[in-house]
């Protein structure tokens, strides 16, 4: 390890040290610096990652600063930055105190960064656990609400099981191939026989938990509902993005998807069907969005199993789902006053009472439903394009039909926002400046990437080729 290596992985170090700094500072001067430092650290990490040219690092580090890692690091740092902005004002309103909150968000972003830049299965596992641990804490952070603690516990138990699956899967792959280096181990696993296959199976099962693919999705609605809403935004945008990045690290070296096709096919089918159908029945808005995320990840699985162009579509969708989730949960967080929003019904007339958040939420719903000109449409287009290209026609048809069904529950939110009379007519409070900046940015991103997705597609193509 050289100084130059440290210089290169500075974005990761910044996030980790920033997290510690916020914690320590909180102990010395309890106050309001946490978010400010966190935002600065995230911005610094993103800028650093942007300006540092990719270069190979000492193998002992277990990380590689590839274009892939660099781009995803920027994405995660920006996601964390926006989540911090959302969380700050929300925490003030809901009486969530303490520097642990921003510190843990930074730590979670660090874990995501490690996942994206991992070159070694062990680093990958550590990054994955770092980010999941951050979320165990964040989800349970609202101590005043029993639901929050319950969600945290549920996530912890499920997460521990999935971690065990992943760890054992990695161990089997190591046993079969004799290497922990991702590229080499994955490439060699094709000749690894039954043990390698079992390793892949366990890995896939564990990762299905992390991305919440059906039937391993059962924690998702409780955790989404129980966690503070900005945490849910970060969870949806960041941790799903990291899990997709993880898939994109381990699947492409495989070349032919071969025996993994069948399980991925099943996961995609089940997720699209179960997620969309369950979301249809949910009166609770965050649970509904949680089931919808199961469905959205089903589309990602469809992209992954299509290979080639599908990997690009999945990477694109990681960004797309990130901005859509930040917009949806961010708008909900901004609407929440002293208590959390529960039912879809509570959004009645909000479109007129609080127009800014209403528009953001409506745009997010149309985007999640895949209506052009939004990034959701561009992403779905790329996914179905790849699926048809790869000959997955039946699954694509099922996917498109479930997508049509999904429009119903997304529309229900819009219907409540604009077409049902409000219980009270007076305009509500305006969004805080931080929320306005954050929500404005993601809404512009949803529309801009929908109208002009070319550059982002070029970028994901470049980073996956490199």
């Amino acid at each position, binding site marked *: 390890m050289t100084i130059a290596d440290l210089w290169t992985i500075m974005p990761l170090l910044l996030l980790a040290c920033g997290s510690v700094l916020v914690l320590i500072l909180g102990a010395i001067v309890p106050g309001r610096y946490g978010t400010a430092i966190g935002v600065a650290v995230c911005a610094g990490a993103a800028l650093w990652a942007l300006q540092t040219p990719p270069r190979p690092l000492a193998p002992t580090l277990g990380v590689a600063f590839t274009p892939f890692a660099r781009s995803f690091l920027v994405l995660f740092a920006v996601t964390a930055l926006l989540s911090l902005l959302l969380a700050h004002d929300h925490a003030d309103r809901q009486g969530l105190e303490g520097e642990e909150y921003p510190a843990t968000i930074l730590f979670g972003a660090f874990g995501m960064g490690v996942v994206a830049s991992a070159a070694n299965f062990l680093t990958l596992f550590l990054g994955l656990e770092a980010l999941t641990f951050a979320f165990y804490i964040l989800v349970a952070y609202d101590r005043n609400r029993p639901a929050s603690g319950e969600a945290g516990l549920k996530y912890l138990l499920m997460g521990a099981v999935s971690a065990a699956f992943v760890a054992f899967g990695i161990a089997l792959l190591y046993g079969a191939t004799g290497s922990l280096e991702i590229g080499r181990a994955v490439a060699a696993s094709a000749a690894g026989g039954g043990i390698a296959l079992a390793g892949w199976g366990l890995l896939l099962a564990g990762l299905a938990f992390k991305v919440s693919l059906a039937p391993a999705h059962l924690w998702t609605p409780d955790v989404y509902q129980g966690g503070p809403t900005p945490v849910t935004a970060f969870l949806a945008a960041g941790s799903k993005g990291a899990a997709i990045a993880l898939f994109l690290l381990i699947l492409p070296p495989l070349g032919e998807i071969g025996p993994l096709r069948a399980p991925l096919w099943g996961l995609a089918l089940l997720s699209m069907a179960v997620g969309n159908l369950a979301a249809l029945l949910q009166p609770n808005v965050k649970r509904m969005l949680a089931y919808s995320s199961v469905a959205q990840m089903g589309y990602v699985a469809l992209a992954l199993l299509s290979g080639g162009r599908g990997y690009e579509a999945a990477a694109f969708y990681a960004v797309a789902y990130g901005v859509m989730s930040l917009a949806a949960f961010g708008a909900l967080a901004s609407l929440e006053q002293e208590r959390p929003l529960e039912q879809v019904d509570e959004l009645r007339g909000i479109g*007129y009472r609080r127009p800014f958040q209403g528009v953001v939420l409506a745009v997010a719903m*149309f985007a999640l439903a*895949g*209506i*052009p*000109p939004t990034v959701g*449409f561009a992403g779905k*287009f*790329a996914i*179905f*394009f790849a699926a*048809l*290209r790869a000959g997955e026609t039946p699954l*694509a*048809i099922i996917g*498109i*039909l479930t*997508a*049509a069904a999904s*429009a*119903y529950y997304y*529309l229900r939110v*819009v*219907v409540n926002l*604009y*077409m*049902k009379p409000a219980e009270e007519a007076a305009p509500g409070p305006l969004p805080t400046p931080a929320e306005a900046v954050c929500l404005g940015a993601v809404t512009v991103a949803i529309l801009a990437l929908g109208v002009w*997705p*070319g550059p982002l*597609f*070029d970028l994901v*193509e470049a980073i996956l080729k490199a």
Partner: protein
Amino acid sequence: MTSYSILTILILLPLAGCFCLAPVWNRPEWARPLALGIAVAELALAGWVLVAAPGMPPAPGAAAGYFLWEDAAWIERFGIRYLLGMDGISLLMVALTAFTTVVAMLVSWRGITERATLHYFLILLMESGIMGVFLSLDLVLFYLFWEVMLIPMFFLIGIWGHGRRIYSAVKFFLYTLVGSLLMLLAIIGVYLIHGDATGTFTFALPLLAKSPIAHAAAPWLFGAFLLAFAIKFPLFPVHTWLPDAHTDAPTAGSVILAALLLKTGAYGLVRFGYPLFPEAAKGFTPLLYVLAIIGILYASWIAYAQEDMKRMVAYSSVGHMGFVALGIASWGPVALSGSILQMVNHGFTTAALFALVGMLDERAHTREVSAFGGLWGTMPAFSFFFLFFAMASAGLPGLNNFVGEFLILVGVFRITPAAGAIAFLGIVLPLIYTVRLVQEVLFQTERRPLRLPDLTLREGAVLAVLAVIDLYIGVHPKPLLDILKVPVALLTGVAP
């Protein structure tokens, strides 16, 4: 103005207008004239194009028959282009769109009091989307506009509608979405199959149509396109969203829905469906004939039983669009010109009828046929226009619908006499319910005294313009048919 950017301006002017409304968002008294001004400017532009475009030299790079053409790279990695073109068919549709938007704004001038700015914002947004649908020649671009125009209509019905407005709005949205999502898959399928067969991967219609898809999947792909368009059309049996949407929509919504949105389905079939899959489409002809004829007969029958006047007009639309479908399915030059002309005619006539019912509703707060009677005595101007447009709708010779229906029947007779003969019944049936409607509302003795004021100058002016257009097309359809001659000949491969 260079001819290069006219099409983009046609699409973007209403969209830019939407943003112009922002500063006056809470001042409806300013927003209303501003929005109308933008719509009138768009109409002026469309009118200028209508006069000037046929004389323009073809744009460089344009496919045959197109006098305006714009082409730019958009999402290159997928071969998606920003490709716009205007031929005679698009030209008529663009003119109809610009005109109907102004009508829609004028008929809702006083009726919309709540959130008026948002109302005009949505109408302008929809105009932009519909213009895009009629001008796009790239399949993905077309799909984009096709979906974009849904959203404002969804809000128009859901916010200002009456009755079961939310149910109708959601039903409208979901019906269309199911069809169009399958069409999206088919669009990608066309791209892949065509690319594999020819080596040219493109979504551009002119290139795709040069070597039509001859693949085992072609009937499936055409079926997906047909479903999307048939829902919009609406063809029996996927028409059920229409009466609900029409009945519950506000007047401006009904006008735009009837005059424009239904046309996008027929237009899509003419522009994309048949040229992309000529062989597969031929296979579907009997099915289309049957569905169109069922639609014509069934809709007329149901219309007769309606008590709600708006519902009656809505069902009559299903019948009229059945004629359009019949003409398209025969795919002969005469019937096809008739169909396209009939799309324009139906736009004007039905817009007027919905506007009239809306005006009556504004005054009497009911649309039940049985609530009225003897209006001729109290509202002579209204009654005159009501009678005029009802007769136009029923196909009175000398008025516009007659020309379209006549051409369609002549064309269909020439190709499939049996279908033409049965469809002829469809000419007679509307007369029955129209006569009943006119008799009950206008002529019979007053059922209960209603002191309703007659038309205002604004309402009268709108209707008078519509009536003049109806009459003009009725006695002198040649200019419009001339505009259609070249594109129809190119589409069918037969000189009319």
